[in-house]
């Protein structure tokens, strides 16, 4: 289990991470979200032992992070960290050996993953000659070649086409099944919703939302109501708790500030003619993220 407990890190007067705490168990995918400069990279760097926290502790299976522990961690950086002059095989041997792997094991694992990603022919090709998508695949393989206990994925899908995204999703799910602890960071919230059971939203180093995806969405007060009925925008705007009304074709989208107002609105709409639809939906993670991060930044 990865335990991040009361961790803080400052650069001079700037507090990059402020009292951060979370835990991720084996086979869990944890989403660490935040706008640029929120403190995600600093957190990853602390987990990778590249930075020492000013305060707090980070442990993997109750062991403090050192070079033996980092051997068990895979890290897919946001900016691609590939040595372009090497061939795919040379790079894997390079990174694999740094993870204390034996050459034979690296070669064996590489063959499996190259086949899985359908790039077997590129084993002896120089990385600089590969396409962006294939470089991304190589980068991904390099972070999992040593079968890590903990895998950090920082923007794993950037630059990938939908087919490759599916390939990555399958691979990540396979690793999850095998019990790998996965920390996932992405600006594409649809992907986060797809994977993460638990997540944490950081803003300017501080935790602003934390918990399971289901709870976060459920506990978030705002709701959206989708209505198909003979009711006007002006009428709806007069009701308590209504923040905005948007007409979308034959459907009306009503945003309410708290789910408690949904019943009153339902009572009002149900008296109208031609009520074909009345659906209360939770906000998407993208909306929650935008509102929370936007609100704090305002």
């Amino acid at each position, binding site marked *: 289990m990865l335990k991040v407990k009361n961790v803080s890190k400052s650069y001079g007067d700037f507090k990059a991470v402020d009292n951060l705490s979370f835990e991720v168990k084996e086979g869990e995918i944890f989403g660490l979200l935040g706008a640029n400069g929120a403190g995600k990279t600093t957190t990853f760097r602390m987990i990778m032992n590249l930075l020492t926290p000013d305060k707090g502790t980070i442990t993997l299976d109750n062991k403090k992070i050192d070079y033996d522990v980092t051997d068990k961690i895979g890290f897919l*950086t946001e900016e691609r960290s590939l040595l372009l002059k090497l061939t795919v095989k040379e790079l894997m041997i390079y990174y694999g050996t740094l993870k204390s792997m034996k050459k034979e094991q690296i070669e064996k694992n590489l063959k499996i993953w190259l086949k899985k990603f359908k790039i077997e022919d590129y084993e002896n090709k120089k990385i600089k000659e590969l396409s962006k998508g294939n470089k991304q695949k190589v980068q991904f393989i390099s972070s999992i070649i040593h079968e890590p206990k903990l895998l950090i994925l920082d923007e794993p899908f950037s630059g990938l086409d939908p087919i490759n995204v599916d390939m990555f999703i399958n691979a990540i799910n396979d690793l999850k099944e095998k019990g790998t602890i996965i920390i996932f960071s992405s600006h594409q919230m649809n992907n986060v919703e797809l994977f993460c059971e638990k997540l944490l939203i950081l803003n300017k180093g501080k935790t602003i939302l934390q918990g399971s995806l289901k709870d976060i969405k459920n506990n978030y007060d705002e709701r959206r109501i989708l209505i198909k009925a003979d009711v006007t925008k002006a009428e709806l705007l007069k009701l308590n708790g209504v923040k905005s009304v948007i007409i979308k074709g034959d459907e009306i989208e009503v945003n309410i500030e708290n789910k408690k107002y949904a019943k009153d609105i339902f009572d009002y709409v149900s008296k109208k003619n031609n009520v074909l639809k009345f659906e209360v939906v939770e906000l998407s993670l993208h909306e929650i993220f935008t509102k929370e991060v936007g609100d704090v930044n305002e």
Partner: protein
Amino acid sequence: MSRKFWFLTTQSLLKKIKTKTFIIVNILLLIAFSSLMNIDRIVLFFGGNFNKENNIMIVDNTYKSYDLIKDQIENGSTIIDNGLKFKVTKLDKIEKKKVKKDEDIMLVINNNEENTIDVNMITYGYIDSSVYQIITSSLNKVKQTLAIENLDISKEELSKLNESVSIKREYIQKGKNENEESMEYVLSIVTPIIIFPFFMLVTLVIQMIGAEINEEKSTRSMEIIISNVSAKVHFFSKVLASNLFVIIQCILFIIYSLIGALIRGGTPKIDTINNVGQVSKVTNMINDTGIFNNVISYIPFVLILMLVTLLGYSLLAGILASMTTNMEDFQQLQTPMMVILLVGFYLSIMSAMFDGSLFIRIISYIPFISAILSPSLLLSGVIGIKDIILSTLLMIVVIYLLIKYGLKIYKEGILNYSSNKLWKKMFKALKEKN
């Protein structure tokens, strides 16, 4: 951790050695070394006129200068035998049509008002400066002789006057000999031969470390590497690999020279070509000075100083490279290092000018300069083995400081991707505890 250190070192070294550039450069170097050591044979192989004779035609309007000039030009001695050949003939009148090529030189000798001579030199085009020098020095001697003759001095007395003064040298200090006195000339030739390869190798090591660290930084591979090995291990692996590479290159230089010598087969063919004969004369002169005997006893000390300095330069280059984010920035930051190298190089070449100067002796102790300057000062006797040892110790102190404080900068620098407030960050890193 030691397995990872050796892995990083080997990878870094192999990456340099396995490149096509390294192989091509070394093939070219082998060709260049072997060719230079056998240049006379190559020149001979391609053929050409090596026995050019300067045809001096003299129109002697004084009726007494011709024999003197002929004697001076054909038999007159110069400091260095250039191997030039002269044929001196007499003409009754000026015949410019006889000056048909560069080797044809017509001298018209006239009496002047002071009862000495004036000369009109007619040539086809520009003439070789050595030829010009020999002719003018011969004419000056003739002019002196004619002036002395006017004083009614007998031929015997005149001949004695023209004879060189016999100087017998005696030295109070032990171990001094006449041959070593010509060291200044010899040093001007030997110093670049010793210093230039070192200068080149130091430049190579600086560039290599800079390029490699910046490659890892710019591709962000550094984050992956540093998460698996400490900055210290990474730093020393780069320094060791670069130094090993330079030592390998150095050994290859020696092998190429030996191959060149082997091809030469030890036969001194040089004398067959007068125009390049000077090379053999210089070699003989170096032999006569006993410089090689000195060199052999000095080699271990100088080599240690050079190796220690090479290590110092590579450590400094590594620290500076960690502070930069790309090769362009590194080029700027390494400029002071290159300036120090150049200062040492030029001072070394000019060292004979500073003979006896305390200034040059003090400069020779300065770390980073000492390894370049000391060898020439040692050869010329300005400094001794003790001074070399002192320079080595000073360099070791600098290396200790570079490791102690430079490592702090390196740790901070290699994961820094912004040149913003760079110096502030580095000074802050220096203050941090280990």
